[in-house]
């Protein structure tokens, strides 16, 4: 077969699609796997970080002399210990990692200490003398936009009519809204709000940094992207990127929240000053107060529909705060809002706002769940009003190949209709509800991403393979890489070891985000394997004394391409590996590029729930996820992504929220008061994998990690609203909020 073939439509797979045990599994069930906080170095010190108790305050005095003089304290750092010529791209990251002149939110880092024990470091924080001038603050997105609101970055308004906290405004769409709404029989308009939620990974951020005065260093940390961590840290420390070697530990959950740096540059700066390695581990309280939750949002949606269910126009105005820095995911939210629908007249507007909260970070399909919640709620309201079936109505308006998407592109082959049809046929959707129960349906969309990717696939003389990737494994991706390499090379899964190697061992890799790893590192693995096969064919050609072009790779063997190539016994993978030292030396396959062709993913979720009218508590009774995976490489981990996204969405819909007091301080910085779903909160989560191959991947892979969190907010809101007969428009639908709505 050709080395550039994309044959996902007709290919018969051997390894791909099976469910072998993950290669890192044994270490993870025996406690051996090394996560961020599990690493130590000889002579290592322990770091602690002083954080602002104020939402907004000028730092009037900061004196570290008394802390430095304490026994056991080896270094104390402030902003002055970082690069004062940091690049513009990382200026906000530095400001967030260590405050300059102002504390911008409750929990903002002000100074840090390294000492001989964690207790000594914590005690030394109390000896740092600091005085604040408290400034007016604002934490609500709508309040922050109003002219006259407390200013976080004082200056001229950037968008007319708003306070200087409004950083930018973006707009997408096409057609003529006026005409579209005029053609409707019913126009429905509603406003929505969603609270900020946290990714809630169980592993707090942790790093061990060792940096010497000559600017060379090493960093061990739990991160979704150690190459990005290297680039940012070296900029923040003012050292050369290649002088810093970063090793990614096993990562205890990220969901987007570990795509940037928090404690990593602090550990390095403390280490440089102390001349010893330093470990910094966040407490859970620090994680909530000072890492990146997602945005809170305020959204208006207006949709027009004909009596038969045809959507005539859609408009969404979305406002999101991204903490004290620009960069909320409101632009992506605006792009995702109407992605499932083929609309002639559509507009979505996104407004990016700053306020006195921690700098938001990506959280699984950033922006999309909120936009989806608002739009899909209004679709449900229209279906109820016009007495239409929610799945049929969505099918009638669904985006498909050739549809011009609301944000610009024309869709290639996509699988939305397939998910809706599967939902319609599902036992869940065909089941009857009992009195008091409500059913909700929602579609959801995420782009999926490709990104810069490097892979090396090295062959060993015993016929085994060392596959080096640079994308941290956040959900079983090493198993998928082994499967794809096994498929391509025609050798057993067990003969391949996939390692997430350090930044000195491979070319650059973007972070593990955007549901990109199985797509991009997978594509890279397949292409690296094809590169190796081509070299193996070359060795066979040399052995036989024929042209390289006269050799083909079939069934895991090099064979002459036909009679004209001569009569030669095929050479197996094992045999060619065994002899490679004599036939020209070591063989490795490579891939270094930015793949093009990431495939978008759609999903449809169905949920049944009931509400206890006395307590306001909601019980999720049944939940079904149907999503287009393109091609499921390891179906068990694809199902796991579906289920995990749904569970996070259930938490977001029903319980999770950042609660700020009048003083601008976070009131629920712990898992007791910020309640993520526990095992007894949830039912089994049924899954159906739809496979509409992505033409941009050799095996048809899309990405599956993020789309699964887009529909749950709306699906549950629709289910709960239908159960109680009142439309819920604010998330989370916590018991107090439900009781208030029922009043």
């Amino acid at each position, binding site marked *: 077969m050709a080395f550039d073939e994309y044959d996902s439509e007709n290919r018969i797979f051997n390894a791909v699609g099976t*469910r072998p*045990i*993950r290669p*890192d*599994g*044994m270490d*993870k*069930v*025996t*406690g*051996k*796997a*090394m*996560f961020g*906080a*599990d690493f130590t170095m000889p002579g290592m010190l322990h770091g602690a970080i002083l954080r602002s108790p104020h939402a907004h305050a000028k730092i009037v005095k900061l004196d570290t002399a008394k802390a430095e003089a304490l026994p056991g304290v080896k270094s104390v750092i402030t902003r002055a210990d970082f690069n004062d010529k940091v690049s513009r791209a990382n200026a906000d990251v530095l400001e967030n990692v260590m405050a300059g002149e102002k504390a911008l939110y409750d929990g903002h880092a002000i100074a840090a200490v390294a000492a001989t024990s964690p*207790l000594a470091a914590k005690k030394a924080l109390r000896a740092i003398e600091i005085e604040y001038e408290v400034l007016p603050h604002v934490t609500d997105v709508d309040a922050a936009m109003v002219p006259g609101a407390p200013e976080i970055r004082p200056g001229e308004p950037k968008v007319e009519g708003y306070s200087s906290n409004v950083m930018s405004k973006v707009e997408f769409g096409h057609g003529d809204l006026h005409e579209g709404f005029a053609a409707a029989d019913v126009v429905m308009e509603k406003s929505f709000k969603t609270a900020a939620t946290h*990714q*809630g*990974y*169980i*592993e*707090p951020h942790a790093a061990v940094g060792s940096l010497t005065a000559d600017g060379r260093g090493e960093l061990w940390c739990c991160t979704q992207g150690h190459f990005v961590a290297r680039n940012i840290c070296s900029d923040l420390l003012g050292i050369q990127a290649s002088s810093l070697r970063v090793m990614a530990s*096993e*990562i*205890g*959950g*990220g*969901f987007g929240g570990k795509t940037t740096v928090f404690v990593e540059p602090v550990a390095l700066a403390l280490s440089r000053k102390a001349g010893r390695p330093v470990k910094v*581990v966040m*407490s*859970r309280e620090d994680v909530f107060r000072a890492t990146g939750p997602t945005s809170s949002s305020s959204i208006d949606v207006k949709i027009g529909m004909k009596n038969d269910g045809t959507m005539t126009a859609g408009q969404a105005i979305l406002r999101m705060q991204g903490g004290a820095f620009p960069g909320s995911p409101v632009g992506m939210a605006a792009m995702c809002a109407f992605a499932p629908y083929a609309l002639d007249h559509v507009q979505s507007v996104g407004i990016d706002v700053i306020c006195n909260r921690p700098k938001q970070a990506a959280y699984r399909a950033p922006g999309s769940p909120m936009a989806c919640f608002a739009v899909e709620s209004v679709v449900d309201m229209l279906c109820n009003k016009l007495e239409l079936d929610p799945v049929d109505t969505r099918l009638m308006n669904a985006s498909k190949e050739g549809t011009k998407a609301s944000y610009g592109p024309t869709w290639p082959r996509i699988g939305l209709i397939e998910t809706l049809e599967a939902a319609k046929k599902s036992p869940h959707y065909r089941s009857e509800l009992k009195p008091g129960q409500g059913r909700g349906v929602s579609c959801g969309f995420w782009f999926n991403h490709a990104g810069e990717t490097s892979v090396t696939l090295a062959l060993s003389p015993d016929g085994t393979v060392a596959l080096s990737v640079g994308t941290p494994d*956040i*959900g*079983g991706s090493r198993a998928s890489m082994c499967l794809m390499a096994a498929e391509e090379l025609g050798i057993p899964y067990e003969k391949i070891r996939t390692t997430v190697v350090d930044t000195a061992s491979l070319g650059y890799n973007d972070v593990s985000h955007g549901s990109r790893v199985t797509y991009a590192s997978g594509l890279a693995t397949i292409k690296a394997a094809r590169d190796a096969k081509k070299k193996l064919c070359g060795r066979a050609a040399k052995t036989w004394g024929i042209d390289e072009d006269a050799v083909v790779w079939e069934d895991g063997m090099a064979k002459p391409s036909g009679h004209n190539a001569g009569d030669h016994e095929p050479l197996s993978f094992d045999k060619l590996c065994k002899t490679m030292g004599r036939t020209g030396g070591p063989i490795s396959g490579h891939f270094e590029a930015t793949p093009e062709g990431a495939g978008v993913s759609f999903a449809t979720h169905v949920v049944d729930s009931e509400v206890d009218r006395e307590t306001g508590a909601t019980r999720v009774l049944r939940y079904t996820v149907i999503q287009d995976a393109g091609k499921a490489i*390891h179906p*068990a*981990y694809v*199902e*796991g992504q579906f*289920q*995990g996204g*749904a*569970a*996070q969405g259930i938490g977001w819909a029903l319980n999770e929220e950042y609660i700020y007091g009048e003083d601008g301080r976070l009131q629920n910085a*712990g*898992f*007791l008061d910020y309640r*993520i*779903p*526990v*095992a*007894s*909160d*949830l039912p*089994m*989560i049924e899954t159906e994998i739809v496979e509409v191959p992505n033409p941009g991947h050799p095996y048809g892979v899309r990405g599956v990690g993020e789309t699964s969190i887009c529909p749950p907010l709306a699906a549950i809101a629709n289910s709960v609203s239908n159960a109680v007969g009142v439309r819920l428009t604010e998330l989370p639908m916590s018991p107090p909020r439900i009781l208030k709505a029922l009043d």
Partner: protein
Amino acid sequence: MSKIHVTTSVNGDEAEFLAEPEETLLDVLRDHLHLTGAKEGCGTGDCGACTVNLDGRVVCSCLVLAAEAQGREIKTIEGMANGEKLHPLQTKFLEHAALQCGICTPGILVAAKDLLERNADPTETEIRFWLAGNLCRCTGYDKIVRAVQDAAAEMRGA
């Protein structure tokens, strides 16, 4: 400040350490005895990642003072497999893909083992409530519950 001398048993072996009065059992397991299988997810007993078995009861080791370990028997994830032979729960977690990131897995396995020692045939609801103190953010618990059910069936010989 003087340290406290503690003698205890960890996974059947005698262990001895000097602890600060404010150090927790989790601190000592991880930092003094280098058993890093138990994880600190919260430090406040809310997440269960630090679950160990203390004298036959599952506890959050972040809520137990190190000094309280004197003369007790501690079992951690590191002692769950018998040499190279995994416990059926460990095997079933792998077969069912009941872990994604794996940070909660040690705590959940220790807690589930205790459940199956008390109740050889737990219902889905019993498993869910027993594990309600062990947070998992990746899986939605579905495959975890199924793995525990399957392990229980295998251990019963069903």
